[in-house]
């Protein structure tokens, strides 16, 4: 859920322009999202090794969260492109 919130936040920020919004989107989508995904996977892996672990039947947790994390990273990549564009404007003007 935390990862999902972060990714959603990154996408929401896409609707806003400006270097600050893009930098924030980049940090949320491309840095914080993957970090949280890693944390999730590690913890999930540990739980899988236990005897009481039961994954979701129709929505396996790890691939799902990996897909969500990848989407967030893509949003972050878009943000970093926009941010880099603004930075080059600033450098020119």
């Amino acid at each position: 859920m935390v990862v999902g919130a972060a990714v959603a936040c990154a996408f929401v920020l896409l609707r806003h322009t400006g270097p600050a919004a893009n930098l924030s989107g980049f940090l949320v989508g491309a840095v914080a999202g993957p970090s949280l995904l890693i944390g999730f996977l590690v913890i999930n892996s540990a739980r899988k090794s236990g005897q009481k672990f039961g994954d979701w039947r129709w929505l396996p947790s790890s691939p799902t969260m990996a897909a969500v994390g990848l989407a967030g990273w893509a949003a972050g990549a878009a943000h970093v492109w926009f941010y880099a564009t603004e930075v080059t404007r600033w450098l020119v003007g």
Partner: protein
Amino acid sequence: MAGRLNARRAVAAAAAVLVLSTGVTLVVATAPAGAQIDDWQPCEAAADSGRIERIEIALVIDRSGSLENVDPNGTSRRRALYGTRESLVGLQESVSQLLGESNSGAGLGIDVALVAFDARRGAGAGAETVAGFARVTDEHPSDGAIQAALSSGGNTDYGPAVEEALALFEGSPNAAEATTCRILVMFTDGILDPYDTASGNRPSLERQAESHIANLLDDLCASDPGLRRYRQRLGALGVSSYVAVLANDDFRRGAGSSHLDVLAGASKQMFLALTGHVASPLLRGVSAAAGCESWSAERSGKVVEMEGIGELVGELTDVVGEVGLAVRAPRIRCTPGVVPEVGFAGDWPHGYAISDPAGEPLCVVTPPLDGEMVLRAGGPQLPGGAVWLIGSGAGAEESPRLTAGDEDLLFDVTSSRLPSDEPVGAVEGATIEIAATWFPDAELRAAWPRQPDEVGVVSAPLGIDLPDREVYWIERLVDCREYQRAGWEDPDGGVRATAAGLCAVEGPPAGEFEMALVPDGDNELGWSAARAGDAGGLGPAPGETVLLAPGDPSVSIGARSQVLALAEAPSEEFEDRVGYRLIWRSPRGSVLADRSWSAAIAVRPPDPDPPVECGAEAQVTAARQGVAGEWAIVVDSGCRLVSPPQGTSGVTVTGDARGRAWQLTEPPPEGEQSWPTRDSIALSPGEPDRRLFVGVSHPELEGLIGEDIEFTLVSTRYDEASRVVRQQRATRRVAVYLPVVRCESDVEAVRVGVAAPGGGSEQRARAERLCTVDRPPNGFLEIRPADAPPGPALGWQTLVDGDDSEVLIVESGRDPAVLDVRSGPLRSDLLGPFDSGIDVYLNWVSANGHASGSTWRGVVAVQEDPPVLLDCSSAPASPGSGGEIPERPLAFDTGCVLLTPPAGDVALIGVEGAVAGVSWRLPAPVRLTPSDDDRRIHIETDGVLPNEPLNRTVTFELVAALTVGDYTPVPDREERNVQVRFQPRIRIRCTEPPAILGNPVEVPEGPLVVDTGCVLQAPAAAGEVTVEVADGEVAGVGWVVRGDVRLEAGDDDVPILIETAGPLPNRRYDAFAEFSLAAIWRSPDGVEQSVGSQPAPGGAPTEVAVALRARPNSGQAALLAVALLVGGLLAGWLLLAGLGQRANRLPSSGAYRLVSGQATATVTPGTGVKLEGFDLAQLLQGKSEPLIRRRGRLRAGDLTIRVQRQWWNPRDLLDGGRAAVTPQVKNALVAAAPSSGRPDSLRPTLAPGAVVVALESAPSVSKQDGDRHRARVWVLIPSGGKQASGAQQNAERNLRTARDQLRKRVAPKSATGAGKR
């Protein structure tokens, strides 16, 4: 710190003293030969009030943007301001110390303020006080304030700078102190350029800039309280101004363009008004601004011209030095206008001058603060060469010396240098010169070594009364004779003896001469003074005096006796004496001289009566043409020949200056062309007196008239023995102005009135200027038509001023007259042209009763008279007054009226003329009958005028014709002129606000396109119109019209798009860009004219908002994005690695143990490695080795097990990382099972039953088939016994796996070896 400051102050003070003591010397020493040393000093106003107690210096520093070019970062200005601050601190301390030593004051206070100025459009006032007035110290003005004054930007405007400085001076608490010296030091690097128009062609801004400058110059020297009055306010405060100019080439030469001329000229005019430094090379040839003439001529400052910014330090230091010099210098104050009374004591010329004890001292001298001054006084020159001196009362002959601390020295005129021991004769014999007005100046000069020139060149007028005693120079003004002859005169009925030219007197140099004759001991005839030159004699009544003032022309004074009876008149000459006296009074009333003379006058008896007596003026009495054709005039001389008591009287006449022969004559009889003349006339006793007429002749009458002619009557009286007793010459002058009548032989007459064919005509014929008549010299001239003229008997009448008159009388003294004539009513048979004869009779009757008459005959041609059908007395309506060419025919009221005919009908048959090639026409035919009213006439053009500028006077002619039955007179024509002025129709219409096309948010890569909101309209009639951008730019890129817009008549309107001449620089834009459009209209004949230079007539240039973002750099953006993403990935990778590093996945050393056993391993191809002598069950029951876990390694004896992460597998990495088990035994080939663990970050990789097999002797272990090696086997088992069985099963499986691994590692070589065998 304080000690360091004191040391710095001491150095600064020493520097200031050094500047004071050596700077001036250097100036003097290095000045070129013949160069004029500038002796102006600041603080004159304060010094004149006494000792300077305070100095207020306003440093006004230019911080315009151009300074960044010459002084980047303000390095030189900062150094200069720091240096000025230190110099002022040093000056204050050094001068205060001097004042303390001299005990003349408590010290000198120097207050400093710092003002920075520039000009920014729309940014309010361009000057800022960064530091107000406060005592100068090492901390004031502060470094921060100085830095604030150096931040460059904006343009250059002097007005706010001066206004800010004035506000500081006027707001100072010491504004009313007269002993405060106020100094304005202004530094600027360039010309007055408030709108940055000097660097480029920006016409719209140039007009605004020149308007701004005009207002500034109006304010500069104005006295109107509603204006700023810069110079008047500076003068009221006594401010001394220094202007330090970093002059560039444009500044010196003026120009390059007319606008630069305006900027440079205004700058120099402002400098001239502020300083009055006309000798400055920079201001050479500069004329004062309007109203600044007096200020510019009054020296109140100095212009310092610098070649580079590096000189600023030295120049400001020099200013401080000059201020210090002014403070320390001595002062000489003289009261202007004081006129001390000076008189003489003792006997002239040995007396002494004494000043007026009640008067003020002439001059007061204040000593310098240091050093010694030497005073030298000079006085006026007295008549006779003696010299006045002014002095301090003691030792006037010496040159007083004053040093610092001395009291003020008072100077006055107290004594003269007239030596009492010189003989009188020396003075008497000297050449005496007196000026016209004798108010000489005295001067007092002081030499002070610290100054380049003597100071205090002073003058004050001295009023000197001359001593009240006889003076000698009066001889030069009055020249009296000792002896004169007098004759008898009888000007007013009484016989008097008159002597002229007794004394010639010049006007006095001053004061007044009063001269009169006084009784003398021998004065028997009672002489009185008389001035020559009055008509009829010597004028003044007895006892009257003659007064002469300075400047009066010299006069000749004579004497006239009392009235004498003829019976008492002596027959022989005798002498009498007369005395006269001259008194010379000074302007103050003192008697400067009083002298009397005495002269002898020889009185001679009067002459006999003259033979000719003349009374009235001579005048012409007749002018006749003689038989031979010559003209002659007869003149009454106004004289008569008097019959003598005895002897004979005779008279002759002499010619005039032109050599004409005059003769004595008689008045000619009426109608005669010849009359007697004679050369002389004589009378004997008893004959009646005879009037004298003279005559002169000339071939042409013009040779006798128009001038004054002189002739001379020479009369002689003879005694009985025919000896000449008395001869007299009487010159007479006569003005010969004969009446001249010039008549034209053929003149044209016009008809007056309306021709009405068929009888009953009221027409008359009138001829003007038939004859021109000059006024007669006397009498009158009578002119009238003769009674029976030839030709049609029209009964001509003379006209005087338009009125009927039978006879024209021209009297003497009247202006020349003109004879007009008018006939009686014309008969009906005289409708057409005809000639009429006229005779004019001229009769001149002179004042003397003489008359002469003549008849002149001429012909008057009477022209056919067109009837008056048109009345154009009213002014026409204006058909065009500067508006646009109308798009319809031009129509207007001609101001003419078609008059109703008395009979028949009248028709307006046409209008002739054209305007701009288009003919006039009548809108509708007009025809009037006697029953109609008058009709105003309107005309119009026969079509639309061409759309081109029109400003000319056009002529049209209205033609009206009268028809009465079969008779049609000549049509009546009236020609009129009207001024037609139109401009072409405007072809640019702007209705929408300008907008950038495409609405780009980024700077386009191509030109920026703008829809101006304007449309270009096609020409209405002819020609071609194009449009171009007249002005405007954005970021230095000009505008051009997009596309080739070219319209001809009939084309549709075209919207005007403009674009930049090229791509804009890639940067951010947030401003308004101006542009203005101009339509160029070309007529078919090639005439080109700019129309509609403003898109919106009367409006300002249009502007468009340009708000654009810079274009990004895609390559740089990609690199940066990749870098950031890689950085993010790396950060995640490192985070994961960190997490994995913390979990090494080794089993706990306390929960497991490791058992080991020996075996023999046989390497067999195909079956792998076979362990012999080994029992797994026994091994599990065997001895275990202690298990040690340390630093990510598990150790048991010489076995070491590491679990290494496999970071290269992203999938496993995300799951916690797959782990590889790496056992190590020294010198053994080792295999382990399991060899790796699943991705799991928490569970140990090695589970119970894990096996490690080691073939010893490795790496030298033989791998030949069938080789046997010693092996060791380790099995990991739990410490408790519950899991032992499970561990054994696992161990068996793992043992097989381990042997497979060993087999894989040794099999290839075993197989190779088998093959070889």
